[in-house]
């Protein structure tokens, strides 16, 4: 049941200055995601998918245009205000998992809660519950290097959920794992969406994109 607008991009441009050359990664992208939706963004390599995700996820500032999160323009907030938004409202899942190598699965999931000042005992318990819910109840103390790719991505999903964000942003979450495990990860994400989580997922894989409510095609920095 799609509801109010959670994410809205209005004529967003992102231009990277590479020495002499300007790279226009986003060229007037406009785009909206409603609460509870599952949107897949598809497009060829270099079409600006990751850049778009950086905008949605408050990781970077647009060169031009506005980004609204819950109808607030976040493109003019300070770095530390953006950090708070990333910590509380966004959950990132990356292609390369991006777990901290020195930390156990449990500590990795605790990390976003630590930055929000959640007390140790509370965050440890929540991290444990989240890891149980993604099927890693037996792997709490394992380091990332002791886990398979699929397991690492599950830890990353649990970490993304730790501060109960409004939006889960996944950039090619199955790109680094085999296709069978990839389907399991997709089921996990689809299940989270059924429980009400808004999901924006970037993918190459058409068959995986079909799980989404809506598929958007990105080409040369704007929707095709």
């Amino acid at each position: 049941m799609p509801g109010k607008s959670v994410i809205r991009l209005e004529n967003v441009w992102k231009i990277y200055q590479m020495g002499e050359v300007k790279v226009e990664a986003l060229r007037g992208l406009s785009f909206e995601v409603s609460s509870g939706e599952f949107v897949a963004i598809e497009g060829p390599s270099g079409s600006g998918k990751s850049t778009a995700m950086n905008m949605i996820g408050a990781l970077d500032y647009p060169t031009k245009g506005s980004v609204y999160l819950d109808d607030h323009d976040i493109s003019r907030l300070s770095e530390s205000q953006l950090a708070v938004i990333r910590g509380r409202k966004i959950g990132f899942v990356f292609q390369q998992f991006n777990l901290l190598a020195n930390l156990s699965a449990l500590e990795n999931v605790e990390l976003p809660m630590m930055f929000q000042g959640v007390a140790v005992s509370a965050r440890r318990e929540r991290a444990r519950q989240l890891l149980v819910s993604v099927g890693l109840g037996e792997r709490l103390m394992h380091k990332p290097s002791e886990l398979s790719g699929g397991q690492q991505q599950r830890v990353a999903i649990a970490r993304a959920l730790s501060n109960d964000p409004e939006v889960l942003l996944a950039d090619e979450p199955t790109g680094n794992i085999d296709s069978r495990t990839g389907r399991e990860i997709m089921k996990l994400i689809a299940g989270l969406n059924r429980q009400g989580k808004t999901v924006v997922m970037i993918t190459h894989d058409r068959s995986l994109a079909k799980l989404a409510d809506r598929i958007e095609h990105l080409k040369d920095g704007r929707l095709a």
Partner: protein
Amino acid sequence: MKDYLLFSWNSIRHRGLRSWLTIVGIVIGVAAIVSLITIGQGMSNAIEEQFEKLGIRNIRIVPASLHGPPTSFFTLPNEIIGKTEAISVVEYVDVAMIESGTLEFNKEEKFVQVWAVDVKLADRGFADLDVMAAEGRLFLPGDSGVMVLGSTVAEEEFDKAISAKNNVVFQDNKFRVVGVFAETGTEIDSRVYIPLQDARDIFNRHDDINAMVVHVKDGVSVGDAQQQIERELLRSFDDEDFDILTPEQILSQINTILGAVQAVFAGIAAISLLVGAVGIMNAMFTSVLERTREIGVMKAVGAKNSHIAIIFLSEAGIMGAAGGAIGIAVGTALAFAVGFAAQAFGFPFLSIKVDPVIVIAALIFSFLVGAVSGLLPAMQAARLKPVDALRYE
């Protein structure tokens, strides 16, 4: 904050030995500081203890240009004794002539320092110095040809211990030992004492002495007494003839020497700390570079710039404190070693103690040195753009 310290500790634990080597400078610096302070304290404790034993209310009059303990070479004229005794703040004056000579006992000969004192006053002077007879008695008015021995001379110098009533020969003159001093822990232990008149005859010195101890009347401040004595004596003597030393002045003379030694140590400490600080800074820059991607991830999951700065600052601080902890251990061990060495060389007074205040202060200090060294790397880490950091390979 505790969270971040634990977090930083965790990442330090995963570092290689190479990074640990960078704290050697901190170890040496803190070791130098701790041993310096600990030995310095031990020394000044020892010195003050000595002075307390020698009487804190006594003023010494010594020949001018004397810079160490009194010796036979520098002399005061006899006339100064009477002039000093006549000053109103003076209770009485102990005089000493210092000589050395051969002491013969039981067919053994030893070279000893002899202090010759006025037997009329000796009892009182010794009592004021808290020196007592362990055996026999001290001097009586009219004594001649008698000797009182320091405890080391009596008990250790000769194969056979000398006791009261033994006869000895000093510079070919027969003496009867009438007493032995109780051990004092000071130089007195290794001296022998004889009546002043006997020394004048033996060494043919009838016109001078080597030192005077002036006992100030009760209720008069030592400083005031010193000024008055100086004023009075300058009427009859030249200021090149004598020096008046209060215990404080002697202490400050010694402290000047200590200060020079301390300056050298402090220099070593400063250089080592600088080397250590640069080492930590370098290690932290490397760490920031190696963990660029991690920093990006932490920012993506909600870390503010300040969180990142705190993580790297506490990491640098912990490295500093770790170096400091080792340095404290090394420095304390060094101080004890010096204490034992001093004992072996005959200075049993250097009392080395571990002062918890110094330990805690050194830990905090080394943490701060580390944190300050980590300031620039931490700022660099904090300022990384999340997107750039995440793209870093």
